[in-house]
């Protein structure tokens, strides 16, 4: 691996945004393929951070910060990537905290962790109306929708989203995963969700499983 690629990884792992952005640009200028920068540099670093987090060496704020740097580095390589016809596209996922619910911490963490395994995550935010989710599905055509609900009174919104997907004829095109403190596997089964996860690492595992099935 080139030294520059290594220092890109190092910069992401140490949350040094300035260096990460600079090196990404240098790599691109040096003529390296954008896919290689993305995969061997940026994604590799996030995967490593995910591994470190799993064994307790890295903490969540580092993962979330690195995921942010990843996104801003992506913006640098993206134009070059889009210019290529044969680009490999990563799987898209939409995540949101459902309507009426302002708890977004869990959703943010799950979103950041999903990025560490190479998913292209679109975060619609909190208190997101069902219609907005349906619109985003139409526009982005994701493989996965992740819905977070922290209140017993907003859990039914997860079911409403699934119903709305059915009504819009989109249900078979996308997998739905649900989570949040009061949500259980039983609830997920009852409302016809495809997956459930009690925490972020499990959410990542389930997301990968679901996007691969959908592939």
């Amino acid at each position: 691996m080139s030294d520059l690629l290594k220092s890109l990884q190092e910069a992401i792992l140490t949350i040094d945004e300035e260096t990460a952005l600079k090196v990404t640009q240098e790599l691109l200028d040096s003529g390296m393929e954008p896919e290689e920068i993305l995969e061997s540099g940026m994604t590799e670093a996030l995967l490593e951070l995910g591994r470190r987090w799993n064994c307790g060496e890295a903490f969540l704020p580092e993962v979330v910060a690195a995921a942010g740097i990843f996104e801003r580095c992506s913006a640098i390589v993206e134009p070059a990537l889009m210019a290529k016809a044969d680009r490999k596209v990563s799987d898209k996922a939409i995540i949101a905290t459902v309507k009426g619910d302002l708890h977004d911490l869990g959703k943010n963490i799950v979103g950041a962790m999903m990025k560490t395994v190479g998913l292209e995550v679109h975060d619609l935010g909190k208190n997101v109306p069902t219609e907005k989710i349906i619109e985003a599905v139409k526009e982005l055509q994701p493989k996965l929708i992740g819905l977070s609900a922290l209140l017993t009174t907003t859990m039914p919104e997860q079911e409403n989203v699934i119903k709305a997907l059915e009504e819009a004829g989109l249900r078979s095109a996308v997998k739905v995963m649900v989570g949040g403190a009061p949500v259980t596997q039983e609830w997920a089964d009852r409302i016809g969700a495809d997956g459930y996860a009690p925490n972020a690492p499990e959410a990542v595992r389930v997301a990968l499983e679901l996007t691969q099935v959908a592939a």
Partner: protein
Amino acid sequence: MTPEAPSIRSLPRTLQADALTPAALEAVHAQTLTVLEEVGVGVGGEAMCRALADAGAEVDLSTKRVRFPAGMIEKALERSPRTYVLAARVPEFDLAIDGQHSYLAVDGCAAEILDHETGERRPSTKQDLAMAMRLADALPEIGILWQPMSARDMPRKSQSLHELHAQFANSGKHIQMMTAVTPEVARGVVEIARVVAGGSEALRRRPIISAFECSLSPLMYEDGALEAAQVYAEAGVPCGFVVMPISCATGPATAAGTLVQSNAEILAGITALQVLVPGAATFYGCCATVMDLRSGAAACGGPEDLYLQMAAAQLARNYGVPSSIGTFATGSKIPDWQAGVENGLSGFASVLAGADLMCGAGLLFGARVYSLAEMVLDAEIFNLLHYLTDKSAMSLSDSIAQVIESVGPGGHYLSDKHTLQNMRQQWMPKLFDRLSWEDWESAGQPGPQELANERVRSLLSTHEPPPLDDGVEDEILRIIDAFERGDGGNEDE
């Protein structure tokens, strides 16, 4: 109104410790004013923004950002009453919020219950909530009722009203609403409380309920929270502001940093309320904790929490506003060693800090699971602290040298007259194990949870809560029914 209602145990304010030095307190206050003046607070409603602008706040309507000048905050604090009464349906349960007593609330609002009969963790129901209220009614340590868990089997729209119904029907104590956080539901709550209190004026004179609103940390009041506070205050119902920031996630990484942000959010809420309803009874609430760095969960129970409890209560004392301080919120999953340590220290911290309200008893797993066993165990901790703060039990009688002399070196106090006269002053635990090893073995080696479950069963088998007046329950159900059909919760009913 008696200053200390006989049937509710309160902690007299006889011990006090300050977490912040005078200089630190001043620094926290100064930085808070800087945050309020320069950063400001996000306020959802446009009408609310305009009202605050009229009162002197600098408001950017395009971003809904409200910046508060220091003078506005000071004026609001002056307007906030230092003392008031949280009345109860049964007048003997009235609570004097007078800066001299601490009261314990039932905590809220879990989504699940740890069933004391089956040991199973399952979604909570209105029936569970009713049972918890009957238990709380029986415990003299409990002064205030939050909604300990959600009535998940009730319609979503009217869930809070069903919870209030179960509370009024099963206890005569003061109720504090934590889930009725939109103006519509707040109006439904007020309507029910008026029926129970005997009319609007009666409720205003004797507020048998109170409420609080939460900020959305960092620095936001969204989705009708301030509007709901206004509904309560206009009806004469005290309404506080309780913040729940999590250090490293929704609050700065340092405990002191989270304190400044919390202070800013609470003062912003109180200031908005005093603009809308000058002189409204309010309180200063803080349930701050840290994020567990591995899982991201709210940790609940560590040393940072203790510091934040003490410092927040000290700030409230300093501002002259009653405080409601997050207490007893163990992160543990069962009533075990961790729960005992965390809640024991947490209770002590709130007592030392001079919290007016301590919220509260019975939650496990970082506020997600309710346990009746944990409620009686927390009440036992409170009881222990009651003993410690009750100076009469610890005071020295002048004649003790004579008593010691009469026994003399090498004697014993076992059957001494002084012992026989005074021994009943000793604290008698209900749930601490002091059995002999043999007795403990033959009792099946009960742990705290088993002992507590036993007490829960025994209290529930005997306690009858004071009934509601004739016709009141029907009227409550009628209001809920109208609310469900969509014609309740309207203005000026």
